[in-house]
Every structure is written in C-alpha cells, then in structure tokens.
C-alpha cells in the first residue's frame, strides 16, 4: 500500500518533469539585476514609510527609554515577553514552555531586528531572534528594537545584506497586521499584532 503510493508519486514527478522538459523553450539567460539605490536620508524615509502604513517610530538613546515607554503603556497584569536581557525589569516571569500556544495571552512582545528597509518600512527578523516563530504574530502589540545605523534603502540591498545566510525561518514585517477585506475599509489588527512600534536606537546595541 505504502509502496504503491510512493510509486505513483515518483510517477507524477517523472511525468511532470518530462512534460516540462519537452515543452520548455530554449534557454534564456538570467539577467543581472542592476538597479541603483536612491541616495536618500534613510532614517527619515524609513520613519515616513512606516508611519504611512500604520507603524510608529520612536528615536531613543538606549534601553532606558524603551523601559520607560513600556511602563507607560502596560499594566501590571499584562504579559510581556522578550528575550532581551536589558529589558528584564519589565519582562513578565514565565515558565519556559516548548509550546508556541502558551504565548497566546501575550500582550506585548519586544524583539530585535537585523535591519530595516527604508523604501517599505519593513524589518528583517530571523528565528534566532525569536523564542518562538509565532511570537511577533500572536502578541497583541509588538515593539521592535533596531540600531539606527542598520538601515538599507531598498529590497535589493536588503537581500545583499542577507546574502546566503542560513535560517530556518525569516520574515520581513512592515507595520501592524491589517485587512481591508470589508468594503476596502482599512482595519488594523487582523490576525497578527494590532500595533508595531520601532525603537531606532542611536547607541550601538550588542
């Protein structure tokens, strides 16, 4: 039974590949992508773009500013999740659970990002910056810490920076989750976080 299934699967594979080989046209070269990056003021552009798509940017000098902000927007009952040790003062104590579902009552998550992209307000995050892949999605609100120097102009530069790095999971996040499926009325907070605030920190983070 299992054998038969495997056979029919490999048949489908051969069938598809043979049909594709028979029908694909003569080889055409892969073009080199040479698209110049605008010479723009990256912080301003990033801030402007992210604000337009519903995010918020705060310029700060260090983690003290972040801690003060977190205190100002949360209550004692709120569950705050982060693996950034400098924020331990405001992080909720929680027993480590291997189940991502255990994060479902997270009010606020604070994560770091590798870099941001000025043209679209996105930040690049890989799973080594996350305790769980689901964290930036399942939290009600999201704060991202970004070194103000870690900005690129556009997506070509972004992928140049990523290079051939290995990651199990990586994502660009640009603003809060949103939908306009009901008569094109924009609503923030579809299934992911309801808000996204980025701290652009000018002092080097380690």
């Amino acid at each position: 039974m299992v054998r038969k299934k495997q056979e029919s699967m490999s048949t489908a594979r051969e069938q598809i590949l043979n049909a594709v080989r028979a029908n694909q046209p003569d080889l055409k070269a892969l073009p080199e992508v040479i698209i110049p990056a605008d010479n723009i003021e990256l912080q301003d552009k990033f801030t402007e773009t992210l604000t337009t798509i519903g995010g918020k940017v705060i310029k700060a000098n260090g983690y003290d500013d972040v801690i003060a902000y977190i205190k100002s927007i949360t209550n004692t009952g709120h569950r705050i999740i982060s693996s950034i040790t400098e924020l331990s003062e405001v992080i909720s104590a929680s027993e480590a659970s291997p189940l991502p579902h255990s994060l479902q009552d997270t009010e606020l998550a604070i994560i770091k990002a590798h870099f941001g992209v000025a043209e679209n307000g996105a930040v690049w995050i890989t799973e080594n910056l996350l305790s769980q892949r689901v964290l930036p999605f399942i939290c009600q609100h999201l704060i991202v810490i970004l070194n103000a120097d870690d900005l690129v102009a556009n997506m070509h530069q972004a992928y140049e920076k990523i290079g051939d790095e290995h990651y199990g999971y990586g994502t660009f996040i640009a603003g809060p989750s949103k939908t306009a499926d009901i008569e094109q009325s924009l609503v923030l907070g579809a299934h992911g976080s309801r808000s996204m605030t980025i701290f652009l920190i000018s002092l080097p983070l380690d």
Partner: protein
Amino acid sequence: MHTETKDHAELATVFNKDEARVDWHDETLWWIRQKRDKAVNHLPEWELLRETASQIKDNVLSNLAGYLVQFEENAQRNGIVVHWAADAAEHNNIVLGLLHSKGITKMVKSKSMLTEECHLNESLENNGIEVIDSDLGERIVQLAKEPPSHIVLPCIHKKKEEIGDLFHLHLGTPAGNADPQFLTETARQHLRETFLTRRAALTGVNFAVAETGEFVVCTNEGNADMGAHLADIHIASMGIEKIIPKRKNLGVFLRLLTRSATGQPITTYSSHFSKPREGTEIHIIIVDNGRSKQLGREDFRNSLKCIRCGACMNTCPVYRRSGGHSYHNAISGPIGAILAPNLDMEKYADLPFASTLCGSCSNVCPVKIDIHQQLYKWRQVIVQNGYAPAGKKAAMKLMSLTLSSPAAYHMGGKAGRFVMKYAPFAVNNKLNPWYKQRDMPEPPKESFGEWYAKNRKA
C-alpha cells in the same frame, strides 16, 4: 457551484441587474488601480523592475525542469518533504493522505488560489475533513458558500451589510451591525480560537527559491504565519511556475507584487520558510495541473509568469463591470481568461471574448505579460477548434469579413456610426451580448480613416 457550461455574458447580466452595485464595484476597483499608480510613480526604476522581472521569469520558464529539481534537492536538505501532483485530484489526495496519516480531521488554510483551482475544500469536506479559511475575505465567501471573486480581494463584490448578516447568522454578531472594525474584530477572535486548536495548516506559496529550497508566503493579515507556527504539520501548495532562481531575485518580485496589487510598498508579512520548526513537519506539494501544457503553447506560455497580483483585474473595464463570478473560473479577470482555456477550451471558450482588448491589463502587469494579445490569440484558436461561444459566432463572421477587406472596414465604420447615432437600440440589443446593460458611448464625429485621409496631406 461548478455545474454546466456557463457563459460570461450571461453571468454578467446577472451581476448587472443591480446597477448601483455595479457602479460601486467599478469605482472601488478603480480606486485600487489609482493607489497602484501612486505607488508606482514613486519609483523611477519601475519600468526597469518590470523588465527585469519579466526576464527572470523568461529564464525560469526556459529552465523550469532544472530549477524544480534544484529546489526539491535543497528543500529536502532543509528537512522539507516534497510531493509532486500531476493534477488537482492528485494534489487533493496527497493533502488527504497527510491528514489521515496524522489522524487530523480539521485544518486551517490561508489564501491559496491553487487550492481554489483544485477545489480542495469541497474534496476534503466530502472526505470528512473540516477546512476553515483564515484570510478574512476568504472566510467571508466561505460562510456565504461562494467562491472568491478576485484573487487578492476575495469578497470585493460584497457589501458590508451582507457581511454583517453573514456574521450575525454564523458568528452571532448583533443583527444589523455592519461596522468593518467590529466585524474584523469578531473574525479575529473567532479565528484565533481556530489557529490555536488546529494541528494542520495549509498555505499557498508566492515564491519558491531554487537556490536555497526556501519558499515565501506574503500576507497582510498574518494568517499564514499564525496557522503555520501553531500547527504540527504545515502543508504548502505551489504551482510549478512559482519557482525563482535565486534568493536575491525576491528583491525584484517583492518590490513589484504589493505595489501592483494594492499600492502598498510591501505586504505586512513576507515570511521565508526554510526548515520546519523542531518537532513539526513541512510538506510542499508541487502541482502541474495543466501548467506544463501551457508551457508548450508558445503563444500562451508567458501567462505562467503571473505572480497573482490582481492588477489586471482592477484595471479591466470588463472585470470591473461584470464581477469576478461571471468568469466561472477560480482565477477571474484577464489573466484567468488566458489560463482557463488551457484547462478546458470548450468550457471556457467564452472567456477570451470577455475583453475589449484595450490593453490596460498588459500595461499594468508587473511581469509584462502580453495579456490582451494572448486574449486575441485565444479567440482565434478557439474559433479554429470550433468552440466559439454561440452568441458570438454570427457577429464574428461579420467581423472577419470586415477586417479582411479594407473597403468593408471603412463601410462598416461609417455604417456603424450611422447606426449608433440614429438607432443605438439596434446595437444595444439581445443579439449583441457585449452591449447588454451598456449604453453605447457617443460615436466619434469622424473615424480614424476619415481623419487620416483628410490630414495626411496637410
């Protein structure tokens, strides 16, 4: 839902009964088209990007078998299980087999036009599996027991009051509440419960990278990620044409996709799946379902470059005023009208005729598919194969006579202008399916031929 032979013009008649709704539909889509224009005009390199994307896709199509094998190898090395499905039935069986092997009877799904094409939901439901669509627009049409009417905006044909009624019926919201904010919040709560309790999640694939074996899924809502990161098994369905050669090519396509679709600079989430998270599985199903055949049709192979942005629909004067359901195919609009006849020329013979050939679709397409030219070519293939839709046969005989004789062309134009000026009802009659529910535009005072004759000497 998918029954006997249907006809675009007839189905458009149904949609056109409510003129106010048609106007609203038309204006909403045009507004999205304008948002696209605004976003595009910000980028001086837009045309270069389109050209580059088109050439990357040319390369993909010319080496597709090689890239598919490379992708498979790399994905397997990353710990992803790869399946191949020659057609829709095989795809649906693989999904069913995976769910059975895990004893799973409930699955959450994010947007995947391929699964619409395969009628996966129906097939699974017939086998006792419950599927919940998690994209808000898709959830809405699922509750309404309708197919999506647009590939990016599944319920663009629905008024908020209708959605309020559906939510009242199925999710217990107060009767008469049609506030988008409130309804979205209700769906958020309802679907959060679903995400937390489903062990299987199915997503589509926007791009699959041959060089790395990773695949990218783009959403604004975050539903694909919520499903995939909470499930034990993540199934990703992709057509063979979703392959791109290198990771850095994503830079080109991600810049084009959402600007073309909605005018946003990028989707909120562009997630790159490379390895399953610990203790879980990722399965990719690579589906042909007619694509390799289309690859062999020289005139139509470019349709496989499509990245499903929906821009050709938003700009199409016929789509905007006839609605997605009139195309009676999972993918509607101009691109659907090129893809469908490849699958069944007889059933979809009417679709390439549902166009004015104005070329607006080709102008906005981010991968430069010659959409309107392909529509025109399909008409000829369909007629040659004897599948012309009945209503169009007589009119087309006349047209081919007119177009093949310059004298008749000029006469036809003059006579046409005469008729439209003095007897527009004769054009706007039942024999002419095109002009149902349409008032003819005012005819120009002189034709191009007359104008040219008068002016070329000057």
